[in-house]
């Protein structure tokens, strides 16, 4: 148990229960750890076969910028991990249009394909979730 199994304990029966999980990212990468540690939760969630969505709002959209080179600040560049999510069947990545446009960005600037949602549609999507975890 514990670290070896990622905290997945065989005796707890969660089999069959599928909930809509949304992970909300509103913070930029590197200035704080929330983006990185948030991603670690997302990766673990793949093992639980839940209906996972990722939302990138406000500065969270910066997590998806192409061209992150972190050698000079000597921290690990974890942006390639967003591309690896697909391999874990985590493909529902949503960006709020207003957040992206306010920052002068378009989908071309992003490291992975995303679905861009209006504030209304993002709000409605949030309402559909069973569990919302914000980092």
């Amino acid at each position, binding site marked *: 148990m514990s670290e070896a199994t990622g905290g997945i304990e065989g005796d707890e029966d969660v089999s069959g229960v599928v*909930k809509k999980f949304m992970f909300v990212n*509103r913070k930029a990468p590197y200035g704080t750890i929330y983006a990185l540690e948030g991603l670690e939760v997302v990766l673990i969630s793949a093992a639980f076969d839940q209906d996972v969505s990722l939302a990138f709002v*406000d500065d969270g959209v910066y997590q998806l910028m192409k061209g992150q080179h972190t050698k000079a600040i000597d921290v690990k560049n974890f942006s390639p991990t967003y591309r690896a999510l697909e391999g874990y069947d985590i493909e529902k990545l949503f960006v709020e249009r207003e957040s992206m446009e306010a920052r002068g960005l378009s989908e071309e600037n992003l490291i992975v394909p995303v679905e861009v949602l209006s504030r209304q549609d*993002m*709000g409605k999507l949030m309402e559909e979730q069973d569990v*919302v975890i*914000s*980092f």
Partner: protein
Amino acid sequence: MSSSASKRMLHVVNKSPFERDALASALRMAQAGSGLLLIEDGVYAVVKGTKAADQLKAANGVTVYALWPDLEARGVQDRVLEGIKMVDYGGFVDLVAEHATVQSWL
């Protein structure tokens, strides 16, 4: 799993509208029928006579609550906007139970 019989989402904001854009973002996405609870430094949003008060006026169809202990701690308990429902921690618990889901805007 989300019960259609429950109220909708409860949005929780814990930062001052002057410090962070959490309140603005929550209001941008909150749907009519959902709830907004201000806790910790978020309670400054319900104080009368501030520029932030206008943000709440635009919260169409969103019921606004504020955590009384946090208002009192900050000495702003006598300056609360009309129409804000104040709750204690027990009320906070009830709000979470009554809404289908809860989202903290961090």
